[in-house]
């Protein structure tokens, strides 16, 4: 039983909504003590006034195992997560093949245990092959460790199938994560509709498609009583519907992605495919409305929506190029943009990145309290750097932040008390 004491740290407690200078003791993988003492401790690790927060719990990370290990493996994703202050990766089921049986889920869990320095919490598909026709073995998959069920961006078009899956999931208390989007309206779209899309001549989707998708899902939640989380809410017009559903007492939460919080549709510029994501980047008005919704707590979680794509999938005409951006390593520095713009505070950010995702999935992390797992990130919110995508640890380098000036560097990451990343090493 060895004790580690991290001293002279700015401790960010999202639960209490406070930031204070003090020290934190960890032992046997859990946090054992937190004190406001600023006295130096013999043998303690001096954090030099940098920020210490509960590690990020990232819902919706794509690790391309099985199927596309050349894009991302559990080893590379785990190392990227550690370097980004992400201590729990909640993996998506949109692999090849989909994670839709206990056997494929066990394969992923086993690979993760062998190779990943951070915790992995797997999601399973909601329907077989994410095809929206037959539900998966929700019971067996829960037993195998699935923390949630989601078909990702494959929106189920058959509401009868979906209502049955929701009803069945409800009976087992399973959490369903859905991608709110009207499938007809969004079919074939590459960008959000409006002046920019029309000038570029790109197929576009109205932001209203998100509201329509959410409205449908909310009706099904009301009908079935399932525990529901919307993976990405990115538009102003979807927010009143979400607020009403929460007021009505439905078991509903919502997330958004770090890219939708920090970029807008004009960033696509001259057909830059690294800015092609799903749902597409939105207008500046939408971005600001969604940031405000995070501040108010209407939107509960922020994810990286880490989606690795190789050069070949992106070096194509915009319409043909694959969607998605990597985000594990850039999530924290990007989030610091919101801090420095004085739009969100550090406790607000870590409430959305760590505390709320852990709570929603029933995981013990995300807190800075005695008894909580020692999953921690130490970072300097002010340290400036210019991002070079080829320095990323992800196998795929498709970040929209390439070449951009960022502020905020991860200095160290601990998972279960073990230091899995040290920027000085």
């Amino acid at each position, binding site marked *: 039983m060895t004790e580690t004491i991290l001293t002279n740290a700015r401790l960010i407690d999202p639960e209490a909504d406070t930031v204070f200078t003090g020290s934190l003791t960890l032992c046997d993988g859990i946090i054992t003590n937190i004190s406001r003492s600023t006295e130096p401790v013999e043998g303690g690790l001096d954090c030099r006034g940098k920020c210490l927060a509960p590690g990020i719990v990232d819902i919706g990370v794509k690790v391309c195992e099985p199927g596309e290990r050349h894009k991302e493996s559990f080893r590379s994703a785990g190392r990227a997560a550690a370097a980004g202050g992400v201590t729990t990766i909640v993996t998506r089921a949109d692999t090849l093949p989909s994670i839709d049986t206990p056997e494929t889920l066990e394969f992923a869990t086993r690979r993760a245990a062998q190779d990943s320095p951070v915790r992995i919490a797997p999601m399973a598909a909601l329907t077989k092959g994410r095809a929206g026709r037959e539900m998966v073995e929700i019971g067996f998959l829960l037993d195998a460790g699935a923390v949630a069920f989601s078909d990702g961006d494959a929106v189920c078009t058959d509401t009868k199938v979906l209502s049955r899956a929701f009803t069945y999931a409800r009976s087992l208390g399973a959490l369903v994560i859905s991608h709110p989007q009207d499938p007809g309206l969004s079919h074939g779209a590459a960008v959000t*509709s*409006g*002046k*920019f*899309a*029309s*000038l*570029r*001549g*790109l197929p*576009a989707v*109205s932001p209203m498609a998100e509201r329509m998708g959410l409205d449908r899902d909310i009706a099904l939640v009301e009908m079935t009583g399932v525990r529901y989380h919307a993976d990405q809410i990115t538009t102003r017009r979807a927010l009143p519907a979400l607020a009403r559903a929460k007021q009505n007492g439905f078991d509903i939460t919502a997330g958004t992605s770090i890219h939708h919080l920090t970029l807008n549709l004009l960033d696509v510029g*001259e*057909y830059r495919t690294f800015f092609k994501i799903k749902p597409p980047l939105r207008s500046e008005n939408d971005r600001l409305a969604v940031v405000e919704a995070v501040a108010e707590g209407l939107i509960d979680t922020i994810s990286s929506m880490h989606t690795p794509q190789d050069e*070949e999938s992106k*070096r*194509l*005409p*915009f*319409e*043909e190029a694959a969607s998605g951006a990597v985000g594990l390593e850039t999530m924290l520095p990007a989030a610091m943009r919101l801090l420095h713009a004085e739009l969100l505070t550090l406790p607000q950010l870590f409430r959305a990145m760590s505390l709320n995702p852990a709570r929603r999935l029933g995981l013990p992390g995300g807190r800075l309290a005695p008894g909580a797992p020692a999953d921690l990130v130490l970072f300097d919110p002010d340290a400036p750097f210019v991002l070079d995508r080829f320095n990323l640890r992800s196998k795929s380098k498709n970040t929209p932040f390439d070449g951009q000036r960022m502020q905020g560097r991860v200095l160290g990451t601990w998972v279960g008390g073990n230091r899995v990343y040290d920027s000085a090493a």
Partner: protein
Amino acid sequence: MTFRARHLLGIEPLHPIEITTLLDLADEYVSLNRASVKHSDVLKGLTQINMFFENSTRTQASFELAGKRLGADVMNMSMQASSIKKGETLVDTALTLNAMHPDLLVVRHPHSGAVDLLAQKVNCAVLNAGDGRHEHPTQALLDALTIRRAKGRLHRLNIAICGDIAHSRVARSNILLLGKMENRIRLVGPPTLVPSGAEDWGVEVYDDMAEGLRDCDVVMMLRLQKERMDGGFIPSEREYYHRFGLDAEKLAVARPDAIVMHPGPMNRGVEIDGTIADDINRSVIQEQVEMGVAVRMAAMDLLARNLRAEVSDG
């Protein structure tokens, strides 16, 4: 020298002075094309490759003739039939071609932005002959030249662009060009065929021909693609012709000297009445084709001059 562009990818990056420079030079080429000996050597020794990933007869012929009249070595490649079918990516195709050292690459592609992508990967000058729904700059330039010659000016005109604007790269390039030259632009069409956000382009939007064409100096009709005619965007061909097809009655509200334009190929009896199209007092559709060759000669001449300047600068 007031034409600085390295490529002609669209109207958007062009300055009004560059547009005027190009049109002035094109005027000279109109004279050359009407002479008995239609030949010049300004592109002698240069290689022009026409790469069409989408069907085209008229534009490709126009570019081919323009290159040949200026003395370039011209090669046509129909890309639907070749390596694309074998799974080669656009960038690989570009690199392969680049290794053959062309000087001028004329490209048409069904996807918006594809020609920009290709231009980033090659060393030669690239001319966009139409990319998806994005731009078709030489069409807008030839339309501008036609208007300037018919009206004696290219500013302060009321210009109506009518029909399927949403799917039209011709419309986009024309809106950009005619806007840069300070004309008043109206878009007229059923709302399903007018792009969303068009009101923010500094244009007026109408869904009624009688209002949209009132006092216009120029009426520019667009082609309605066959595959868009049934049910999806408009209820039927006959309802479209009734409401948006250009006939004498609808044209009567425009200025008496208004000209009628169409980028071709026309669907007679769908977007335009045959007698209007053939009326030599109103229709400048044949002139547009003639101006097309001259404008493409001017564009390639100017880009080749810039290429040579680049080489001599080291």
